């Protein structure tokens, strides 16, 4: 292999895996900064802490790739969560409680989907409306009060499966599901096609509205599961819980390389994006960085990670163009 090929291979690797390199670099720096960072318990903690936001981010990734987004995910999470907790307190059944959360998540997202596909409302506006309605419904149902004494419901968020905290298992399961849906199904290919060019996708025979509605329904399932995990982790039904989580989810997806212009993004990239934020938050607390400074550093490193990722991808495009020209 000559030097030129080696250089191209490296450039290709760098562009394809740039976000994972950022993640690896951050991991190594954090390890050097504090030895507790790499302890098994700490890594489990970080994974558990990011799990709810990351599950929401998988749903966002599918929506963003298809050219949409969901601003209502955190509010729907709260509504699904409090209704699920309430269902558990009424019936004592974990299965019913779990199904209620998923049903609420799906119903709210079907409404989102209808607003977008039937009434052609921009997803930003449609989900913004749902954000307000769902939060209001959660507050109205609980009269603004938290629901306590939720008994065995905590098993979803505080239990262990195969020695790992249950939220991590849910996160891994939904990572695999998202990856499979996006990479190995007709639905996934349609999602990329619609996000890349909706008119072309329509012209090629893809039922755009059907795919968009399915994307919202899958997002609804993820939001419902996230609702169960959030409420059980904090041991209460909190109607004002998870405020701002929609932005955590969007941040993870975008840092992970999902493009707001649509057609680009991966589940594993989103997971990497979530871990970048999770590592940052964790190491800054471990080494005792001032609370105000943490916000500045968090913003700066997120900006740098995204700039590096874009720069690496731009180089890849130039490399490809160079190859075409040389042929």
């Amino acid at each position, binding site marked *: 292999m000559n030097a030129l090929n080696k250089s191209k291979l490296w450039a290709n690797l760098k562009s394809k895996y740039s976000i994972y390199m950022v993640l690896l670099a951050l991991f190594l720096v954090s390890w050097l900064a504090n030895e507790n960072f790499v302890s098994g318990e700490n890594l489990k903690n970080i994974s558990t802490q990011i799990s709810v936001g990351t599950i929401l981010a998988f749903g966002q990734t599918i929506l963003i790739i298809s050219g949409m987004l969901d601003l209502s995910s955190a509010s729907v999470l709260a509504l699904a969560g409090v209704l699920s907790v309430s269902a558990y307190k009424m019936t004592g059944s974990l299965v019913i409680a779990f199904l209620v959360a998923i049903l609420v998540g799906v119903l709210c997202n079907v409404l989102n989907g209808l607003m977008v596909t039937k009434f052609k409302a921009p997803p930003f506006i449609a989900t913004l409306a749902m954000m307000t309605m769902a939060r209001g419904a959660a507050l109205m149902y609980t009269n*603004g009060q938290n629901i306590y004494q939720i008994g065995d419901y905590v098993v979803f968020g505080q239990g262990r499966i195969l020695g790992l905290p249950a939220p991590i298992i849910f996160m891994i399961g939904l990572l695999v599901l998202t990856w499979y849906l996006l990479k190995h199904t007709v639905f996934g290919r349609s999602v990329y096609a619609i996000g890349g060019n909706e008119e072309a996708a329509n012209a090629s025979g893809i039922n755009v509205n059907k795919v968009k509605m399915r994307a919202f329904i899958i997002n609804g399932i993820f939001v419902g599961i996230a609702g169960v995990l959030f409420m059980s*982790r904090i041991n209460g039904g909190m109607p004002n819980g998870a405020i701002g989580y929609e932005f955590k989810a969007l941040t993870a997806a975008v840092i992970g390389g999902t493009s707001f212009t649509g057609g680009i993004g991966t589940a594993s990239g989103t997971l990497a994006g979530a871990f970048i934020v999770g590592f940052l938050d964790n190491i800054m607390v471990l080494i005792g960085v001032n609370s105000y400074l943490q916000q500045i550093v968090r913003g700066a490193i997120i900006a740098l990670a995204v700039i590096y990722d874009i720069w690496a991808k731009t180089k890849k495009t130039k490399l490809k163009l160079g190859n075409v020209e040389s042929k």
Partner: protein
Amino acid sequence: MKKWLVITLIVTLVAVLVAGCSQPATEQAAAPAAEQKDVYRVAYIARAQADSFAAWMANAVIEEAAKYDNIKLEVFDGQASDDTENSLIENAITNKYDVIIVQPNNGEAQRPYVERAVAAGIKVITTNARISGIPGSSSVDADPYVQAKVNADLAVSQIPQNANVVVLMGPPGNFHADARRESWQKEFFEKRPDVKIVGEEIANWNKDEAMNYMETWVQANDKIDAIIAMNDNMAAGAIEVVKDNPNYKGILSYGVDGTAEATLLIQQGLMTSTSLQSAYDLATALLDTANKLVTGVEKEINMDINSPIITKDNVEQYIEMHKRAGAIK
């Protein structure tokens, strides 16, 4: 001569204008006291119905108002936004309410609007937290310094020598968050220089944020002897992390608010103490104040409710209180 005439005319004109502008306000201010009505309209502008304490308080105010035949209460939601809260105060002035009760989102941001309401002759009561220094307005509050102090006084004797403690703070700039932290500094940390703060973070009153910080502190420190939280929600979040960990059996934890969850944790021996900021007491005082102001019994009232400490010794009575209110079933 002409010059003096012009100056005299200008001064006279300005004096007339100033007198003209200020007179109606004075007349308006005097009017409601003189006017006796069958029903007085009261606007209660809540900080945010999404805030669980604010929601508890709004519910308590509604319940209390139902006891007064001469008061018709309407509740408005400030949605944790200065802009929304200020607009609601402006609307209440325009709609000529007899009393406006303001639970500020940010006292300084609401101050000019409260001043405007007072100037319009409306009785204004600020609460949780009070906006002080507005002549003509009244206030009902609990003193955040005292709320923290009653816990700090207990902690001075309870927290062991050379202890490691973690501190969970409320949002910076919030009057109650800052005053409670200041109280802990003066009433505990300055009296106990042997105690080391091994972690201090802003968890914004939130349970989930407090959980995340506590999980990390547990990794970073071999020993944590006490959790000092500026509210019960954050204390409960930190306790959630260590409650099943045998290494942290007996960890001390302090909060403020006296929420239903905190009383249950104290009953179970998982939390050490909290101080009650009773929404019921605030509501009772608010409606009593409103009634006295509109009926002319008093012109201005500024009062604080008590901040009783809740420990394992007296927790049962507060659990009963929450049961009566339906917060514990």
